């Protein structure tokens, strides 16, 4: 992000340029062998950063802030919050 006069932003939709994934301390990792495809993680993700690709749930780490709601809501414990190595 460049420093603009008074924090002015002239491009609409430029929020996507701010990669909020850098705020994360723990990252969610999905174990696809345990996953029962209930869709809870996709429903509850507040960003939303979980999508389904080729039949599997994947996390968008560019924007996932690591809140852990997905891991909390997973009924089979298929999502583990792992300390981020930076």
């Amino acid at each position: 992000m460049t420093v603009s006069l008074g924090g002015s932003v002239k491009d609409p939709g430029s929020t996507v340029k701010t990669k909020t994934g850098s705020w994360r301390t723990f990252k969610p990792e999905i174990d696809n062998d345990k996953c029962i495809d209930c869709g809870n993680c996709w429903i509850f993700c507040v960003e939303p950063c979980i999508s389904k690709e080729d039949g599997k749930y994947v996390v968008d780490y560019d924007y996932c802030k690591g809140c852990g709601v997905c891991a909390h809501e997973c009924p089979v414990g298929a999502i583990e919050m792992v300390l981020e190595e930076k």
Partner: protein
Amino acid sequence: MPRGDVLHGSRAVAEAVKLCDVDVIAAYPITPQTHIVEDLAEFVANGELDAEYVLVESEHSAMSACIGASATGVRTFTATSSQGLALMHEMLFIASGMRLPIVMANANRALSAPINIWNDQQDSMSERDCGWIQLYCETNQETLDTTIQAYRISENKKVLLPSMVCLDGFVLTHTIEPLEIPDKDAVNRFLPEFEPAVYLDPDDPMTLGAFATPADYIKFRFEQEKAMRNAIEAIEKADREYKKETGRGYGLMEEYNTKDADIIIVSMGSVVGTIKEVIDQLKGEYNVGLLKIKAFRPLPKERIKEVLKNARVVSVVEKDVSIGLGEGGLFSEIKGILYNLDERPKVLGFIIGLGGRDITQPDIRDIIKLSKKAEKDVVDEVHWIGLR
């Protein structure tokens, strides 16, 4: 042709605002500022000033309305005092952070509790870190001239920061003084039409004051400090050009008898008039000068150091105190400016005139006598004048 008149300080501010063709005025009344905005309301109602006058329910809203209006690229004004300024507190940071050249008159007044409507400078001193230019005035004429200059300074593209013109409540606002109102053509030459650098336009949408993450926020604050440093030059440039048009100039500060003075008093606002008078009376008896601080933000630190470094005693006379530190803000800052000199003057602080208590010539004489004593003897660093 300039016009001679005899006016209250408040009316002088209103006349200045009228001359600056302000587009939007948003204000809420508070003593001792009220008749500034009453006069402006009258000008707008009479058709003497073509401005939008926004009646708001509080000072927080007055500043918010000025921020909104200024963000669309028009010239804005408000005036306040004491509790009103305190209520604006969070919006003051937003105005400076969004780099909006709003001009506000602050009629300096004590803060409650206990309730007190009279003059001191605690209100604006408490807002010194909010990123606003602060210019303190000695006379009604200076207040009028400074209000006009403030638009030129704030709208300078290298500055783009809001300005607070500080005039002592009652001492200036309610005191009648002969003064000169500049010619409209002279003001037009001095103050060109406002050309905003960025502004909100429905046909070309953008966001102002948007989000900055921890990685970037500090850069925005640093840019504000750079702009404030640029304001030092902008104030001097505006003052020079104003002097060309009107014959009057004030600079960043004024030195009165400071050359080779053993004692230099540092102060700001209307009280410097009394101090000058006493210095004249004591000529030959005491070698004492005065440094009048006009620009408190930006504070011209290097210039101040140059003026004060050869004095034996520097005595800071001010109408505010930081409770818990036990000293006034200006005193702390002057001490800080001088601290890294190899040889530095003694610095004394005098807290005086709080809540409108008169500051008399005998008070100033006592301060000078004590300062003289401090040349040789150990005296207390801070003195509260008028406890009884």
